[in-house]
């Protein structure tokens, strides 16, 4: 068991290093650099960056140096716990991300909870009442949830919210509370804004999880041990919840690996459409502006989260499912 975890952890460290190289290279791949995108941005807003200014900026940011020198500088900074300065925001990267990170977590966790709260019972219901009208209804709604792109749903809800309810457009706070210090009023305001993004973000996931839960459970329900347990006189409800559901949960544990990075990034497109102040749009903007350190840090963070998530799901699986534990030792 310990060697198993140890080996996984070692592999994880190596993977993180590879991710750091890859993320740095990928960010350097597009043509141009921060200065060219800065010039373009200024140009579209009706102002000019003179050749002198462009040259000065390149010198100040050290953009002329070869890529491995820049990577080495970045690594040295990282080793000291300094993630660098965002070129566009002109603030330490940690601050820029930090400010949005926990809001992202709030939105994502809300979406995730919603997914599970809806998906698990419906999935169980669908499997145990296979081919009942309820199952058909759940399947129907589930496929719609899977098929409709959630950004489109976001657009529709935004439009309806605006025309029918005169709701604020986008964001997680009302304008007057945006800047206010934290208070119960502000928390309440956040809670009021939360359902729509959570619903939209959660819907596609819910549909998917319902299908997974249903399929897994159906497999289990037909197994002899279930029949035996029933024959021994255990109530239907207890049998199902105690054994087959537990086994059917395995896939949930193994998706933790992808859930973790999702929680910190949120969905990029939906966040953009809804104007949510989360990490997703920040990443997109950083990539567009070629803000190396900011984009690099976010990509690295997502990579690390995936690695940690995978490691966690490996361990979780071992804990949930004795078969995996036995196979390995």
């Amino acid at each position: 068991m310990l060697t198993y975890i140890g080996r996984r952890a070692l592999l994880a460290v190596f993977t993180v290093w590879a991710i750091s190289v890859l993320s740095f290279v990928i960010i350097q791949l597009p043509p141009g650099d921060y200065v060219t995108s800065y010039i373009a941005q200024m140009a579209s807003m009706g102002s000019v960056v003179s050749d002198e200014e462009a040259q000065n900026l390149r010198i100040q940011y050290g953009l002329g140096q070869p890529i491995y020198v820049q990577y080495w500088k970045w690594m040295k900074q990282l080793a000291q716990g300094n993630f660098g300065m965002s070129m566009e925001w002109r603030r330490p990267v940690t601050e820029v991300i930090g400010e949005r990170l926990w809001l992202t977590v709030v939105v994502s966790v809300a979406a995730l909870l919603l997914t599970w709260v809806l998906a698990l019972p419906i999935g169980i219901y669908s499997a145990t009442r296979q081919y009942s009208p309820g199952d058909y209804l759940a399947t129907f709604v589930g496929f719609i949830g899977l098929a409709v792109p959630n950004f489109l749903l976001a657009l529709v809800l935004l439009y309806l919210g605006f025309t029918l309810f005169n709701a604020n457009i986008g964001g997680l706070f009302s304008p007057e509370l945006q800047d206010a210090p934290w208070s119960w009023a502000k928390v309440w305001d956040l809670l009021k804004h939360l359902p729509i993004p959570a619903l939209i973000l959660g819907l596609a996931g819910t549909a998917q999880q319902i299908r997974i839960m249903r399929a897994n459970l159906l497999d289990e329900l037909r197994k002899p041990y279930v029949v035996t347990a029933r024959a021994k006189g255990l109530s239907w409800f207890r049998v199902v919840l105690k054994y087959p559901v537990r086994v059917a949960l395995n896939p949930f544990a193994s998706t933790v690996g992808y859930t973790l990075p999702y929680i910190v990034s949120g969905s990029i497109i939906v966040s953009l459409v809804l104007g949510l102040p989360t990490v997703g749009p920040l990443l997109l903007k950083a990539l567009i502006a070629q803000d190396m350190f900011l984009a690099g840090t976010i990509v690295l963070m997502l990579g690390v989260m995936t690695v940690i998530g995978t490691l966690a799901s490996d361990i979780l699986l071992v804990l949930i499912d004795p078969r995996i534990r036995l196979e390995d030792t």
Partner: protein
Amino acid sequence: MGKLWQKPQAGAVRSRLMVTLLAAALVGAAAAGALAQVVSKSNLVGKLEGPEVVTDPAKVPKKLSEAPQLAAQVKAGKLPPVAERIGQDPLVIKPLHDIGKYGGTLRGGFTGPADFWNGFRCCSGPDHLMFWDYTGDKPLPNLARGLEMQDGGRTWLLQLRRGMKWSDGKPFTADDFVFWYEDIYKNKDLVPTPSATMAINGKQGEIQKVDTYTVRYKFPDPYFMFPDVLAGSTDLAGQMYGYRAMGGFAPAHYLKQFHPKYVGQAELDKKAKDAKFDSWVRLFLAKNDWALNPELPVVSAWKTVTPINTPTWTLERNPYSVFVDTAGNQLPYIDKVVLTLAENLEVLNLRAVAGEYDFQQRHLDLGKLPVFLENQQKGRYKVYLDPADYGGDMIIKFNLSYEADPEIAKWMNTADFRRALSLGIDRDQINETFWLGTGTPGSVVPADSNKYNPGPQYRKLWATYDVKKANEMLDKIGLSKKDAEGYRLRSDGKGRLRIEIQTLGGQFVQYTQISEMIREQWKKIGIDLVVQEVERSLAIKRSAANETQLGAWNNDGSEHLFTFPLHVFPFVVDDVVSSGPLYARWFNSAGAQGKEPDPRMKELMEKWKKAFGVPEKERIALGKEVWKIAAEEVYVIGVVGLGPAANGVRIVKTNMGNIPARQYNSPDGKTPGISRPATFYFK
């Protein structure tokens, strides 16, 4: 009106962010309403008007007063009395309509830390030493009390306002100019490459202190353009440019703590490291950034209190503001400006429709005009259009120094080829489709009212729709052979003459879609146009590397020919769309690098350069000459211009006062800065 909604041929139009879907949905829904309300220039474009600067010393108000909360602070002993804060020489502005009322918060939107121009334009005052009158024509004293020419234009004496203060109450004096010049501008780390604005004929000038309130600028040659340079959006124009070590002055008493000359290198390096900057230069520039550093002493009407890199960029009145109205009330009237971050332009536009902004002009999309109009009552705002004075909301630049394909290079350097292409554009169709008829079809020359406009006949010169003449011209220059589909063949026998136009998506003007329409129109003159939308960094890289053929953009700023020349002739190498990067390099290096342009272009460049050193009358004549050559040679095709596409759609709450019916719309005028938002108020 059916034409209004006609879409251009889909062709290679690539879909951009899905977000546009929303716009489409909204526009569709509003279409019916919009068709009823006639979108026409006449009922949306008002009379050009604006506040005036009072320069007559006799009209300076004797008694000064201030906002109630400042008066309370004075009473509590936290601030000196208003007369002491403003000094002996207030900057008097006659509000457009009436003396306003104090109070209120102005709400607007911005798009992120790169949108600093948003605040510069609305809230800086502007803090230029000189600034334009509301027609954008004449530079008048602004923060400076006066500017006196001596020695035939070689020396300029700038008089400061006596007793004027920085926002922290420290005096604003000639020392702040000398500090900027000696310790910032001449510091090689802060300014590795000197600014062209401090030079005449390539020779750098100097700044000296005469006495506390007088500054002397000395240049080796006559520099008659100097007042315009101080008034325009240039490196010498004011504290806004501090983020790039420019501005012409800086608060010495504050910034010295971040300068190696005054604190020692070791200590400064530690300061930079503690703040997580990788060099003292970045630290210094961040500290000297008006939008970023709330501690920075400023001389603008409002000052930043929560910086631009947060979700709300908030500005508050500067208690030491030197601006006053004709009744002696210290400006601004409005207490606070709150700009909220919009993650994308669609959200910003939708918030404007929902009436969440009091005054918004920046980032509003002309294509959504019908939606804006439809929601006027509901959102309690009024829509104004501010058509600009530059000739092209859309222009097409020929890359004249193109080399990759000699055949295409040859044609692009043939005047009649360029003229024929220009004649092959049906500008009225484009104007109706994309400008909803609010633009003016024509050449690149600025508005007739502009002092450098060469004459009304140049608007239509080579800018009418004449397929027959275009075909004749193309036939005559040697492009008479056509293939089976009717496209003209190259003269070197390598098939069809195919030209590429580079466009950018996500801009105020839909360059790609308009180019697709032009592609269809040019079929009639046998020209095969390939429309290529590229990502913006790639666009700059390709332009700078001399790889592009045609490029679509606008010529905003060109109404101020001498401070914004880059869309008139090749001036900048790193540009989104360049009309000849090698020529630009040639021009900027005084012939040492790059490639020498043809004689006509050289003549244009010479005239432009010469204008800086001659008196105004001669300069105006030279400016007209420059535009004449530009229009005759068609180095750049003007498509539709004098329109409201860029920053020209304005939404203002109906309860605001001193709002001009139409304002001068120009980057140089820092619009709406030219309408002095400090005089706006809530009724």
